[in-house]
């Protein structure tokens, strides 16, 4: 019996290791490709930085980066704001019809991105008269990112002790002052986490943004265009830089959430 347990333990560990390999090998492989000249069969590799220097002088890359940052910032700010308010409302108040509110916040998780993209395109164009631009892209990305932001805030806020706020209110603090002086100092890592996740989702989003951007380029649409017309090695460099930025951001988020939990004074899991 003990042997069987050990076998299944090692089998599961092996499956996990293989999953990491499956998920990360392609990412590391194109990072490797971004530094070689002979990208088709890079053995032995001839190292070069040419793809990065080409990327550095591509003007549409700069424009795309700037636009992606704007979409990320706009979406991140809106989604973090709505998600924090929504999660606080849901956790704090014993009100009926909570389920309906939660459904609106989480519903976008169950709508395919391409469907969000085409339906907002049609609605903005034919009903609201909004042209395709960064603003439209931010609006439609926010609905999608909000679901993820909401889950991030909710997962952290369930550990929050609302008695701290009640105490502040008893001593006469107005709700807004109470939020900024009591609640926010404790929950900011969760809010930042929601912002970061929404930022990254919108920054890298293709299927929603594409339909709402008009002719405005972003990094994902540039990457998509390159992929469509036959891959160029600059794309490896671009992908590597974006992947690196994402993993650094996530590491930061992880550390903040960890230290944030310590700050709230709750046990780690």
């Amino acid at each position, binding site marked *: 019996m003990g042997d069987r347990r050990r076998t299944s333990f090692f*089998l599961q560990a092996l*499956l*996990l290791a293989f*999953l*990491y390999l*499956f*998920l*990360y090998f*392609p*990412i590391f*492989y*194109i990072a490797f*490709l971004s530094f070689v000249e002979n990208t*088709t*069969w890079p053995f032995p590799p001839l190292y070069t930085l040419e793809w990065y220097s080409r990327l550095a002088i591509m003007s549409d890359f700069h424009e795309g980066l700037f636009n992606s940052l704007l979409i990320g910032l706009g979406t991140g700010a809106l989604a973090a704001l*709505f*998600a924090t308010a*929504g999660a606080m*409302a849901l956790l704090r*108040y014993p*009100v009926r019809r909570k389920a309906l509110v939660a459904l*609106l*916040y989480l*519903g976008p998780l*169950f*709508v*395919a*991105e*391409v*469907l*969000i993209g*085409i*339906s*907002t395109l*049609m*609605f903005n164009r*034919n*009903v609201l008269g909004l042209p395709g631009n960064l603003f439209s892209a931010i609006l*439609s990305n926010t609905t999608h990112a*909000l679901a993820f932001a909401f889950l991030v805030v909710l997962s952290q806020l*369930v550990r929050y002790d609302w008695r701290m706020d009640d105490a502040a209110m008893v001593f006469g603090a107005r*709700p807004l002052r109470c939020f900024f002086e009591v609640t926010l100092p404790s929950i900011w890592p969760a809010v930042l986490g929601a912002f970061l*996740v929404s930022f*990254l*989702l919108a*920054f*890298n*989003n*293709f*299927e929603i943004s594409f339909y709402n951007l008009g002719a405005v380029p972003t990094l*994902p649409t540039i*990457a*998509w265009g390159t*992929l469509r017309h036959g*891959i160029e090695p600059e794309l490896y460099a671009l*992908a590597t830089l*974006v992947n690196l930025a*994402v993993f650094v951001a*996530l590491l930061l988020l*992880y550390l903040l959430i960890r230290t944030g939990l310590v700050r709230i004074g709750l046990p780690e899991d």
Partner: protein
Amino acid sequence: MKNRGLRFDPRIQFAMLALPGAAFVFVFLVLPLLSIVVFSFWRTERYELIPEWNLENYRIVLTDPTYLTFLLRSLVMATVVCLASVVYAWPVAYFIAKHGGRYRLVLVLLTAAPFLTGIVLRVTALQQILGPIGLVNMALMTFGFEPIEALMYSNVASAIGLVYLWIPFMIVAIYLSLLNFDFELLEVAKVAGARPWRAFLEVTWPLNWIGTAIGIVLVFVPTFAATVTPRFLGGPNGSLFGNILEHQFGATGTWALGSAMGVVLFLVSLAFILLIGRTIDPKRTGFTGIGR
């Protein structure tokens, strides 16, 4: 004084906090989805929507053999990808939840992290492994083997790509369910004489079905609507329903027909969600409340 009382009314506070986000989703997602239902009954002429009510778009989508083939292929693809994800994600999520100890949060986040780099870059990376000039085929050819046709621009490549993209959702969903699962129950089953497999099938699986079901839905929805993956990994016979849908909003500009396809896509997903939802028995979830 009256004003002050109003401000502290919990219902008002709840509304002030919850409504902005809810209203935002309603205006910028629910209304757009409803609007394409309306447009799907109109027609398009020279890139313009004409408000003349008709059922022609649905007749085309639901009777044209080409579109039906795409729809069916998407359905099969989504089913296969869901099954593969469940089978692979279960032991992995189980391992992390049971043996991860203090590292389990890191372990599960590592499976989810690539998701945030975006599907275009993820598909790009995968194409350099599976594509015709990808690592696998180049290696085979360099060492004098026949290239594996199934991996190059095929539905198999698409399926691998879709598992690659969406398995993080399945793992996280099952993992979160297992966090609320009392592993002691398995010891009880063992004491009662149940073999590991029987204990799994009669205790672990049914008590965590809710997590699995949520994972299945979260993988099914984007897979059924996939556009980027089949386009860059699927090859000539790999187009899925999502591709024919996006085509209506690109080159052909047939908005009304595209809207009808969007509605069909949404209704099939919704039917699937409801079908899976019916299998969840709230009394047998093993769920004891958030954060407990």
